[in-house]
Structures are given as structure tokens and as C-alpha cells.
């Protein structure tokens, strides 16, 4: 009836105590690439799970090619031609690529698996995607980008016509993202319809013709990518104008705090040297996999260095365990806050006081009142949206969880704070608040090391920027000289195979 291949109307999905989707709608045309954007917790992931049959909506209807459908489970949705590729690749590391592709719908004759045919079909799919690995490789030996390609092959093998991608470029390098863009466009040209969720505007501009925005579990609107401005899009996602994203204060820079010289860990990074001074925010940027996280984890004492030196306020120091680093005044906000930054089942208060338990001990016993008061203070300082310090950390949104981790760090006696991708998966509103906190930290005389892959952050916040590529520092810029192009250039590997020429004949 309508010209849409997929249409959802009035979808409401309720979990105990939470309305995850409130009367949302969505329309997808055949052969369209459609972006789905919104803050964390806006309902995008839940929505995808409703489409793929993982969740069943309490209200609303789904129409596939004009006909109403009611999926009883993911298998039915898959049979109807809908496939999803999630951010965290769910694959079988011990099994081969072929097995991963065909798991659940293997080719059989009289109950016996037909390995020859499956391998052959898998090979064909991989060739279609221009893959650089074989169908007999073990899944666990592949890189994240390669595994994602297998996921796409899997979707194709089920004859999916609607392909949904959840944050497809989050873990990819620039080159790998380019390859993904090419594959996605090819899929569209072959008649598939694609929905993708992303926090990156560049993904949207590059691929999508239409974008739909959700906010607070509600449908806000659908727009043509060509006609909406970025600030209007942000306003739709956030509900308010974000003007002063980055603090503008220019501060006095003091003496050297942390200095790293010739730091090396075989196979991860080599000869890393940088320093950060009081009141400075330095950026450590580069592509995913450049070795930034590994570097700071070694500085913080999580892993051991093979050679090199670390100095704190001019003195050479040895850091073997995180507690050594903390004693020196170095704190690390880890990249994965849920895995390494928080104990999700605990209340906020106890999360905040975990690194500093010694401060609340008298006569060997923990003074719980002192602890509660202290955690309240730190949580309020970063403006955490919570009712009580006993709220479980799992109940908070991504942005708020990150604030709790920040509060936890501030509770320590610090000189240098290292933040690893602090705004990853954080909505625009909370991002601004975190930037403000970083500015305040610099103002107070701390040294801040910011690891980030987001250009706007690096360009907007940092006094100096180091670029890493393939485990080495390839460049250092001051705030005045740094540009996006220069960073990009130094972030890329200088091998012939990875460079491509753009329209002007320049090597990109």
C-alpha cells in the first residue's frame, strides 16, 4: 500500500518501571539508507530489537512490504528477511568463518552437514565483500573489522533485504570505515534497505539519505540528510541549543607534572615520549588501535613496560601496580566504564569511595557515615543525576555513569588525570558537562591527558596534541598549529596499500 518496505506505527515497549519506547514510528523505503540517531537511552537499541523480534512491543504494529507482521522471535524476523549486525560482535571464536556464517541455518542432507557446499557458498560471499581472509579461518583469529564483515556475510546468507547496523564504525579505523561505507553502498545498490545507528555525523552524511531522531523514548522527526543543518539535528536530539560546547578560558601553564620518555612495550607501542604540565590539557589522538589505551595502561600500572622511563614532577618513578600510580597522583578513567570503571551492581556511593577506602578508616574499621558524606559530596560536585547514593550504578544512563567515574577519580589525591575516550557513548548534553569539568580541572592546576578519536574534542579542548599511529608518536602540535587534516595525515599508516587518492589526485 505505502511505498515503504518497513513501517512501524505507534510502537510502545515497556520494561519493569521504564517506558523504553513511547508511541514511536518509523518508515523505511526500499533501497534507502536510513540513519537512526539520538542520545544514549533514547530508545534506539530497544527499537532495533523490536524490529528484529528480540523484543515484543506492548502496543503498535509492524508492516513489512505493506503486510502486518508479528514476529514471535528473532528466527521469524530473520526468515522474513531482516538481519541485524550489532556493535559487539557475537560470534563463535573457536569455530570457522563458514560455521559462523551458517550457524542456525546449515546446509544438510539427511541430517548430515554438507561442509563442501557451505565452504563454497561462504567463499562466494566473502569474495563479494572483497574480504582479505579465508572461510576456513578461525573466527577468533580475525580482527574486529574482519569479524564485522563476517557478520555482514551472515546477513547476506540469510537473504536479508533489510539490514540493520548498530554503531558499525565504532571500532573501525578510517580505512576500515571506508571499506564498510563501500560495502554498505553496494548493498543498497543491490536493492537492500539499510538502517544504521550511529553517534557519528560523518557516517550519516556519507551514507544516509534520511535520518530519524528519537529522544527520551519518543519519535521526534524524520528529516532529509541534505536539508537539515547539524545544529538543528543536535537540537532535535538534545532538545536544547548547545552553544558553548567547549570552555574558552586560557590558563596559566605551570611546571611539568608527568613525563614519559622512550616508553616501549613490544607489540603494542614503541618509544613513546610526551609530557603534561600543570593546568594543561594534552590530547593523545589517533585511530582506534594506535596504541593509546595500551600506553596509558602501562603508565597507570595495569601492564608492564619493556623499556623507557616515567617521571613525576621531575623524579624518576617506578610504577608496577595501579596503586603505585595512584599514590603518585596519577588517575586513569578507563575506556570501558562498565567493564573497568564501575561495579554496576553497587550503589553510586560505594563506587565513588572504592579507590580511597583508606581515607574512611578509623581504628581499622570503616566509618560508613564519613564514607556516605564524602561520596555525596563528590557526586554532587559533578552534578550526577541521581536520587540517592544507594542507587545502583546500573540504573544510570551512559553519561551519568561516566560522571560517577569522574567523581570517583576526583575523590583521590590527584595531580594528573588521564581520560580514555571519556565521551564515548555519551549523549551530547552530558558531553558538554564533562568538557566543563575538564576545563575546571585544568583551571585548578591539574594536568589532563585526553585520549579521544573525536576531532571536535581534540581541537576544542587541548593545549597540545600528540598523534599516535601504529604504536608510535608521529607528531606533536600546539593548539594554534593543529588542524584536522594534519592529525588525519599523521594518524594513517604510510603503506601503499592503505592509501587512496581522492578526486584531486592527492594521497589521502
Amino acid at each position, binding site marked *: 500500500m505505502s511505498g515503504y518496505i518497513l513501517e512501524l506505527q505507534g510502537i510502545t515497549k515497556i520494561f519493569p518501571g521504564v517506558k523504553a519506547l513511547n508511541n514511536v514510528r518509523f518508515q523505511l523505503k526500499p533501497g534507502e539508507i536510513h540513519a537512526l540517531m539520538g542520545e544514549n537511552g533514547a530508545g534506539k537499541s530497544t527499537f532495533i530489537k523490536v524490529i528484529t523480534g528480540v523484543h515484543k512491543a506492548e502496543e503498535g504494529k509492524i508492516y513489512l512490504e505493506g503486510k502486518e507482521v508479528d514476529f514471535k522471535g528473532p528466527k521469524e524476523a530473520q526468515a522474513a528477511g531482516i538481519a541485524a549486525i550489532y556493535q559487539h560482535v557475537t560470534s*563463535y*571464536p*573457536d*569455530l570457522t568463518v563458514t560455521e559462523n556464517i551458517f*550457524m542456525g541455518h546449515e546446509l*544438510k542432507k539427511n541430517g548430515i*552437514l554438507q561442509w563442501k557446499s557451505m565452504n563454497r557458498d561462504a567463499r562466494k560471499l566473502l569474495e563479494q565483500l572483497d574480504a582479505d581472509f579465508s572461510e576456513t579461518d578461525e573466527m*577468533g583469529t580475525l580482527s574486529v573489522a574482519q569479524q564485522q564483515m563476517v557478520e555482514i556475510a551472515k546477513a547476506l546468507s540469510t537473504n536479508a533485504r533489510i539490514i540493520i547496523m548498530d554503531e558499525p564504525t565504532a571500532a573501525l579505523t578510517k580505512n576500515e570505515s571506508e571499506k564498510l561505507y563501500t560495502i554498505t553502498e553496494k548493498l543498497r545498490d543491490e536493492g537492500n534497505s539499510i538502517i544504521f545507528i550511529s553517534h557519528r555525523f560523518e557516517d550519516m552524511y556519507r551514507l544516509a539519505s534520511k535520518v530519524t531522531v528519537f529522544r527520551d523514548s519518543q519519535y521526534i522527526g524524520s528529516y532529509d540528510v541534505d536539508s537539515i543543518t547539524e545544529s538543528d539535528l543536535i537540537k532535535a536530539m538534545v532538545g536544547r541549543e548547545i552553544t558553548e560546547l567547549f570552555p574558552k578560558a586560557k590558563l596559566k601553564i605551570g611546571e611539568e607534572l608527568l613525563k614519559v620518555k622512550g616508553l616501549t612495550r613490544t*607489540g603494542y607501542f614503541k618509544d613513546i615520549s610526551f609530557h603534561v604540565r600543570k593546568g594543561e590539557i594534552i590530547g593523545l589522538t589517533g585511530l582506534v588501535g594506535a596504541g593509546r589505551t595500551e600506553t596509558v595502561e602501562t603508565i597507570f600500572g595495569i601492564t608492564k613496560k619493556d623499556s623507557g622511563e616515567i617521571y613525576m614532577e621531575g623524579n624518576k618513578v617506578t610504577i608496577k601496580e595501579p596503586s603505585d600510580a595512584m599514590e603518585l597522583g596519577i588517575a586513569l578513567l578507563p575506556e570501558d566504564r562498565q567493564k573497568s570503571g564501575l561495579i554496576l551492581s553497587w550503589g553510586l556511593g560505594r563506587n565513588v569511595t572504592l579507590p580511597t577506602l583508606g581515607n574512611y578508616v578509623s581504628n581499622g574499621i570503616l566509618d560508613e557515615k564519613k564514607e556516605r558524606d564524602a561520596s555525596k559530596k563528590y557526586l554532587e560536585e559533578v552534578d550526577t543525576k541521581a536520587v540517592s547514593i544507594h542507587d545502583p550504578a546500573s540504573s544510570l544512563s551512559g553519561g551519568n555513569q561516566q560522571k560517577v567515574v569522574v567523581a570517583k577519580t576526583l575523590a583521590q589525591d590527584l595531580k594528573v588525570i588521564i581520560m580514555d575516550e571519556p565521551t564515548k557513548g555519551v549523549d551530547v548534553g552530558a558531553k558538554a558537562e564533562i568538557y566543563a569539568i575538564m576545563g575546571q580541572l585544568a583551571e585548578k592546576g591539574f594536568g589532563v591527558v585526553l585520549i579521544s578519536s573525536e576531532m571536535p574534542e581534540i581541537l576544542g579542548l587541548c593545549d597540545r596534541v600528540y598523534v599516535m599511529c601504529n604504536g608510535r608518536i608521529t607528531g606533536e602540535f600546539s593548539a594554534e598549529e593543529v588542524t584536522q587534516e594534519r592529525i588525519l595525515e599523521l594518524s594513517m599508516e604510510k603503506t601503499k596499500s592503505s592509501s587512496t587518492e581522492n578526486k584531486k589526485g592527492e594521497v589521502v
Partner: protein
Amino acid sequence: MKKEALFKKMSGSQEIVLTLVLILLCVIIQIKSPSFLTMTSINDMLKNNAVIMLLALGMLCVLLVGGIDISVTSTSALSGMIVGLLLKYNIIENTLVLFLIAIGVGCICGVLIGVIISKGKVPPIIATMGFMYIYRGLAYVLSNNQWASAADLGNFKNFALGKFLGINNVILIAVISYIIFFVVMKWTAYGRKIYAVGSNSEAAAISGINAALIKLTVYTIMGGLCGLGGALAVSVYSSAQPNMMYGQEMNVIAACVIGGVSMNGGRGSVQGVLIGALMMAVINKALPLVGIDSIAQNTVQGAIIMVVIVLNVLMQRSTFKNSLKRREM
């Protein structure tokens, strides 16, 4: 993920290494004791280890789905005891029926364990620890402190001596079982699902695989094999006692560990288990030849398990280190 991945790539050749070690061991033993590789000697060794080898097949599947079962010998004892009592009081004397009953009892034991683990979400080590005592206790209670001796067993004990197509019955059953499992694990969807559940149970759920059902069936099969093993043990040793096979669950696990089955699930093969079980059998035979009393058998077994798993870790680390060196920075 990368670290584990490299290790796994390397352990595929573990089976080749193991086979070579096994052959080497046999050669050394043959030199020290020329009667080792005679038909009778091999026949005896296989017969005495057939039950363990059978149980190891079931343990393979249990380990593959990421579980463990330390109640296996208790289930065998219970089934064996029931067979013995049925014979002792002349209730049932048909050999085939007795085997079926034993397998049936084993399956019931296994189903119970499977339900507790998959539906009750009790950790396998805890569940099977509890059932180890429950089933063993039941064996004692049923027997009421009595044995079934050779005289009581009548014709049943002759089963272990009989042959079919020239091969000893007991060994034949083991061989057939290994062939069946080999085919199922490699060539049927069910077998691959076992690997899938062990490799990544979340992915399995998303693929629409009913992980709970797979686990339930795996423990049931384990139970059935235990029942079969219990009945066979009664025939082989011509007696049924409640303390049958006490402490031998370690032999079963050792056979799997040596055979390259991963304790984390998702990795392992029927051929690996075969080599591992044979290796254990050969080592046990070799011990007295090196002057180690059979009383030290358990200690040696435990030490071997420890050495194998530590060696695995060390090899994995060294392979990983080498791959790191190859990364050009």
C-alpha cells in the same frame, strides 16, 4: 580475544604432538617390558579402561558446553548396583534388558543434573558435587551394605568375556561409541551446536539455539554413558559394590584434559579424547615399570593434569609473545 585466538590456532596440532608422545611412550615401554605390545596385553588394557574411555566421551560433550561433571562415577555405581541387585535377587536376568535398565537409570540421573544446571542455573561444579554424594549415597542405601558377588551375577559376567565378530564385547561397545560420537560431533547440526554453546553461549542464544536444551541433553547423554559404563564395570570386574569406581572421575577428566579438551568450552575433539584416554591407560601401565607403586597412581594423575594445563598456558603465552614481536612498530 587475540591472545586466546593464537593459542587456539596452535593447539590444533596438539593432537599430532600427543599421538607422537603416545607412540614414543609405547616404544619405551615395549623396550623395558617386551610383553607390553602383545595381543592379550593390549586386549586386557583396553578392556580395563573401556569404561573410563566411554565416560570420557560423555565428559567431552560436558566440557565442550563449558560445564563439568564430577558425579560420573557415582552415577555408574548407582546403575551398576541396581544391575547387581536385580541379578542377586533373580528379578531380571536378561543381559540386554539389564543394560537397557542401567542406561535408563543413568539417563534419569543425568536428566536430573541437567535440569538443575540448565533450568535451575546452579553452577555445574556445585550441582555435580551434590549429586556425587546423593547418587553414591543412594547406591549404598539400596545395597544395604551387601555386595553382588560373582556367583550372584550368573550369565551377566560372561558378557565381558564374550566376543562378537572376533572382538571382545566390551571393547566393541567402546569402539562403536567412539565412531558414533565422531560422526555426530563433526557431521550433525546437534554436534556443532554443542561446540557453539561452549564457544559463545550468548551468540548461540541469538542464533536461536536453545542453549539450555543442549546442556540438558548433554548431561543426559553423560548419564546414559555412565549407566552403560556401570553395567559394563559390573561385568568386567564380576562384582557390584556401592564403592565401585570410587575416585575414578579424575581419570575421566584427566583423559579429556590430556586430549586437548579446553576447560572453558568450545574446543576439543573425539580423536583427542581417544588419544588422551589411551595415554592415561598406557601411563598407568608404565608406572610400575618405572618403579612407581600403583599407590601413587592418583598423585601421578593429578600431577599430569597440572603439568598439562600449565604447559598449555606457557605455550600459549610464548606463541603470543612471538606474535607480538612480529608486529612491526
